[in-house]
């Protein structure tokens, strides 16, 4: 199973991850991660050094995007996490 996380800005400069669901369909995870890679993932890759040196802020990305999703957490069992199954990206 793959857990889907919602990523948004916390405070002025931090990322906040919230698990919002899970999928058993690799195609759903691939679609989510492609969206991440072309949005926040691209921003982080292009600004990583500046972000580490506090010469840039991740809040810049969230000026135009409220949140993104990522699906790169693999897990055997999700019992107790109270997560809904996501079969279609439109269910997010």
């Amino acid at each position, binding site marked *: 199973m793959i857990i889907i996380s919602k990523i948004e800005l916390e405070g002025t400069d931090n*990322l906040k991850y919230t698990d919002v669901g899970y999928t058993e369909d690799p195609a759903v995870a691939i679609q989510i991660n492609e969206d991440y890679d072309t949005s926040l993932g691209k921003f982080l890759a292009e600004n990583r050094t500046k972000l*580490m040196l506090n010469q840039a802020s991740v809040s810049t990305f969230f000026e135009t995007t409220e949140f993104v999703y990522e699906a790169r*957490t693999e897990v055997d*069992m999700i*019992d*107790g*996490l109270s997560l809904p199954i996501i079969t279609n990206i439109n269910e997010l």
Partner: protein
Amino acid sequence: MVPVSGNNLQANPTPGASSVSQQFSNIFMVPPTTTGNETVVVQATMSNANGRTFTGATYGGQTMTEVYQQNRSGLSQRMVCYALNQAPTGSNTLTITFNGNQFNPISIAIKSFGDCGGVGNTLRTGAQNTPHNGILTIQDESFVMMTSCSVNQILTQQIPTGSNRFFSQHNTNRQVAAGALGAPTATGFPAGDLDLQATSTFGTLTLDRVEIKGLSTAPLNEGNFFKLFI
């Protein structure tokens, strides 16, 4: 008593903060024989750029023990292992903290074990040409966790040599094999030197291994103490 392997989780987030948290269910497909002997073990790898180090971890609010923290200067990475014995069962939050914001991806592997005597022997060897061979001296009925880091794609995690184990390929600006576990369910591994091997497409890779011990004696919390008088 052989450990019982429980839940397994591999994550590869970019923390974007001075800590990262992950929900994890300390649960078991096959219930352990005893209660109160659950151990949660975490292996994590991240870039050491800008002097980043791991500063601690908690699970369910309890401080985890740092089994090792290894700087891999040649790979510009830090690799760490944390463990918590008598870990709370059910769903809890793992939090790993750093000495500053981390905007590089981090590799995290979390595993739970029941009927577990905790972490035993560990050994870490730096980058060597593929295939990287190593041994770990273990007690009878133990399991073994393994992880590797490389510039190149990692192909196998063999516990013991010749037995490929599942792992997740993570990107931390280097390649990391996360979550490999050798766990012969019924017997564990026999006592002695266990041969291990890790391979990559080419070049070098590291090999860190951790023994997961079974319970060496019947635990009192199963009521065996009182059975003596029956």
